[in-house]
């Protein structure tokens, strides 16, 4: 695995298999959590980071975790030079360039993840991942990403932005959860109707943020 760890960022070559990420002592707990369960050891060995960036549904929890962490991607620019873009741009296919490296913030962040599943290791019907940066008990920045509430893993920037500038308390968390529930546009399938997925988006966002609330850094 080609990787580089700085004080605040962990950079990994996109040829790296997911299992090597999991095995790395630098792997943040949130990413570790996102790589076990539905993704088998075999799948992690076979799947490179590049594949997950090209096809976010291969490892949706992993992508959601990266979105929540605010990961960035180095791609090959039009002039052949490396250019850094946000992960969202890659996931939303706003760029078709080859992803070369993934950059994952590793500074002390609070994180939480909540999911609803048919069975414990099943692909979640809906899952919410939240990452919160706090300073003096005030939220500096919050990011929430969901799977199962849209066609692909997605970050919900506007609802999460409601948290910035104030404390992380129950009322503000509930407000974000309600905003998430209002914002998502899920499509129903045999695992969960659109109505159910929408309701779960709110419940699980609240739970993920509550985990952040209780976390010590």
């Amino acid at each position, binding site marked *: 695995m080609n990787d580089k760890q700085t004080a605040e960022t962990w950079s990994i070559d996109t040829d790296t298999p997911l*299992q090597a990420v999991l095995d790395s002592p630098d792997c943040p707990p949130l990413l570790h959590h996102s790589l*076990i*369960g539905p993704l*088998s*050891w*075999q*799948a992690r*060995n*076979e799947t490179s980071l590049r594949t997950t960036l090209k096809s976010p549904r291969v490892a949706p929890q992993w992508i959601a975790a990266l979105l929540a962490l605010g990961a960035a991607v180095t791609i090959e620019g039009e002039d052949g030079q490396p250019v850094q873009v946000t992960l969202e741009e890659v996931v939303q296919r706003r760029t078709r360039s080859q992803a070369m490296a993934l950059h994952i913030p590793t500074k002390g962040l609070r994180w939480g993840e909540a999911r*609803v*599943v*048919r*069975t*414990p*290791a*099943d*692909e979640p*019907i809906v899952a919410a991942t939240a990452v919160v940066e706090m300073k003096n008990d005030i939220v500096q920045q919050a990011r929430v990403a969901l799977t199962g509430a849209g066609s692909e893993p997605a970050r919900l920037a506007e609802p999460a932005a409601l948290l910035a500038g104030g404390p992380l308390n129950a009322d503000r968390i509930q407000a974000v959860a309600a905003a998430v529930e209002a914002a998502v546009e899920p499509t129903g*399938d*045999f*695992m*969960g*109707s659109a109505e*159910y997925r929408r*309701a*779960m988006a709110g*419940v*699980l966002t609240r*739970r993920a943020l509550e985990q952040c609330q209780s976390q010590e850094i």
Partner: protein
Amino acid sequence: MNQNSLSITLTINGTEKTLTVQRSDTLLDALRRASYFSVKFGCGTGDCGACTVLLDGEPVRSCQIRATEAAGRAVTTVEALADKEQVFLPSPGLAGLHPLQRAFIETGAIQCGYCTPAQLLTAKALLDRQPNPSEAEIREALGGVLCRCTGYVKIVQAVQRAAALLRGEDPAPFAPIEATLAPDTPLAELLGEYSRVGADGAPLILSPPEMEHLNVVGQGEPKVDGVKLALGQPAFTDDIQMEGMLYGALLTSPHAHARIKQIDASQARALPGVHAVLTHRDIPRVKYASGGQSYPQPPPFDQVCLDDTVRHVGDRVAVVAAETPALAQQALRLIEVEYEVLPHVLDPQAAMQDGAPIVHDEPDTEGIYDRQRNIVHHIEAEGGDREAQWAKADYTFEQEYRTSQQQQAHIEPHVCITYWDEDGRLVVRTSTQVPFHIRRMLAPLIGLPVKQIRVVKPRIGGGFGNKQEMILEDLCAHLTIATGRPVRMEYTRAQEFTSSRSRHPQIMRYKIGVTAEMEVVATELYLIGDTCAYGTHGLTVQMVGGQKGLTLYNAPYSKFVCDVVYTNKPTPGAFRGYGSMQCHFGIEMLMSEIADRMGWDVIEFKRRNWIKQGEELLLAKALGEGREGFQQIIRSNGLEDCVRVGLEATDWYHKRGNETWRQGENGMRRGIGMSVMLHGSGIAGLDMAAATIKMNDDGSFNLLVGATDLGTGSDTILAQIAAEVLGIPATDLVVYSSDTDFTPFDKGAYASSTTYISGEAVRKAALKVAAQIKDHAATMLGSDTSEDMTLRDRQVFTPDGSSLTLEQVALSSLHQQDQHQIIASASHISYECPPPFGAQFVELAVDTETGQVTVERVLMVADAGRVINPITASGQVEGGLQQAIGFAHCEEMVYDESGRLVNPRLGPYRVYRCHEMPHLEAIFVQTEEPTGPFGAKSISELPLDGIAPAMADAIHDATGVWIREVPFTPERVWRALRSADTYSGVWQI
């Protein structure tokens, strides 16, 4: 080599190999073509992991890797794990095996053995990187390889054991824990000891004080086929390559209901390399029923090999045979079919309405009860005095329950190879549970006499009822007849879902009358059985369901009314549980609901009413299996002890209704629930099995049985039964099963019959052989009589203590004195069908905000009579529990409005994986069934019967809400919790 071919060089099991591959080949394709048959095909989509190999030491799914990606790299298959010379010379044994292989055999981690190579390789990779893994680490590592047989309990134990062996430790022999259960045995003390054995420990066997100890029966003998399965030997149907073999493929219907107006196969036939294309125009229209059942099969005969009408998405349209699988698929795409799409119906209640689309309007299907309303069978049966019993009822309760369509999901797909042998006889090598039925049923379809057909059953990679059916054999045979060449056909995983069989969805309406003194006086069941497109097993599954569902409490008045209904969905068939588990769900639910409504202790209410020893089964005669049955009396019943032990082991009365125990964080609530159950042991008066035992020069024996071990361990327990009689170790018997040319008839593996029916046939044959041995020994010793001689320790003893070895007897009888072959055959049929009994306990957590249910612990306490082999029997329980939990919790075939199955893959369909299983425990309470071999009854289907109602009971204990439809998916539970469900089906007389 064509333009798409190329050579790759890679290292396989330490040896450099150059393989010619196609660019599109997966590594799985390339390895199997190179005869690395331990690498198994299970799905082709990466869901099952059966194709796992090690690539540069890391586990990967070889179906997800292009062969070209492996160039220059090191591949390890399970063929590399053992030193085979040590294993096979001088005699088969465990020496030379890798510690993992040894441990898998010793702990009973191998059932069908189809996923075993993948499990072994994954475990090896784990132990290579982590010599002392935790149980959680083992489970996570194995999470990528599905097993449908074991519940993973013994696989995890095997890896733990192997890890200890590899660390140089000397773990104690893996053995069941045995204890005596007397009426005065302090259970807390007994079960405390059991609990201290730890999580997922060896099975606990409780025996009555008077039960005689036997030498071989009752021991945890390793499976007789364990070594070859651990080695990944080519033991399965598809593990051969025949010269000139063609590949068959099936074109299936995209419509739920349609008439084929035109079908043009000319382009497909013209494709070079295609040797046959068969449509309904090419095959005689012979009516049949595909269910593998005894002669005469229950009606209706509503199928033909290829029809001009399709009745579900996935129905048969045409078959091709071509030189490669890819060519066969290409040929399918070239068949032009013009369909007249017909109206379809998916819901059985809608199908029974006037004006509904008629699923079977063809005039040549006879015996449909009400063709216009799609009712193929209408069944009515009752026993007792209706007026008198209902008059006693102080309360009447009525409720409806629904079950879904579950798929067997055996990891080895249906696969069949047919060819002409040197005598012009058709050989059918097939993964079937019913080789003799297949031979008989196939003959008229292909126009050959039975004597010209030989059916060979190699090892079976799981079946669970789905291989009690003729799925591929007729089509494959037609292709061999058309081409004169060997033909192989194998279902894709999607076809397993859409074109094989499944469990009948049912709608049950139970009505129970009870007195104020908790006595159930009357029970009525109206059942709608959805047999979907074809009627195979439709009659018998519902009859069994009614019989078992109404027998458990055996009310003095019982009535069964049933409509078996056609719809345009893929056809259900036999599936472990066979109607019984669906109807247990209904009856056990309603009994629990009544107890809750009345404020009665649910245990006491059930105890007062469950069937007792000496009672006659009220509906046994009226509800046989597709015909009238026989009167039955319960001769052994350990249910009281099963419940007593289960209550103590789970600490039931501490947890049930305990608000402190229930409460969790974040809206989580825990609950505990239970159910009781019974099943059967074979089909009374119908199931027949035979066995032949032949003595060899060294005093060993061949045991030839038509019984079909589909992973259950039946070959092993049959050997144990024979060995017990013959006074030899089970390893002195070479078991061969089954081949219609060489083994005697057996109805096959279904209806929980093998131990009880085939086992008694083996016992009878062994008794005959034992008598012959004693007679010859008397001749050798110059004695007038063989009376009072005994067989033990590979010797025959006279009352005065003199003895001869069995080898001496064999050599003498074959070569020296009064020369003859010591050999005997015996047949067995029983007019009894003794039920095994059981109690199941489930602990779970309900997330009241999301509806998610998490199963935490499952205990089954079973009375299977005398347990012939505790290791294989507990494996049956653990694997059965896994399937039962899936049925209750997550497994469901779901259709869109057009009748298309939306989840025809193992991943989205959801089979429980190793790292998400709850804690499973099995305890046996032994009884002596006087009609069974050494007191045995059955075990294989019983574990399926009670999990769904026990889970529903536990969900109610946690939340106060009854969920009356399985599976208990998060949204279904969430909606029930939000609807503030109240009991609506009760009224007081």
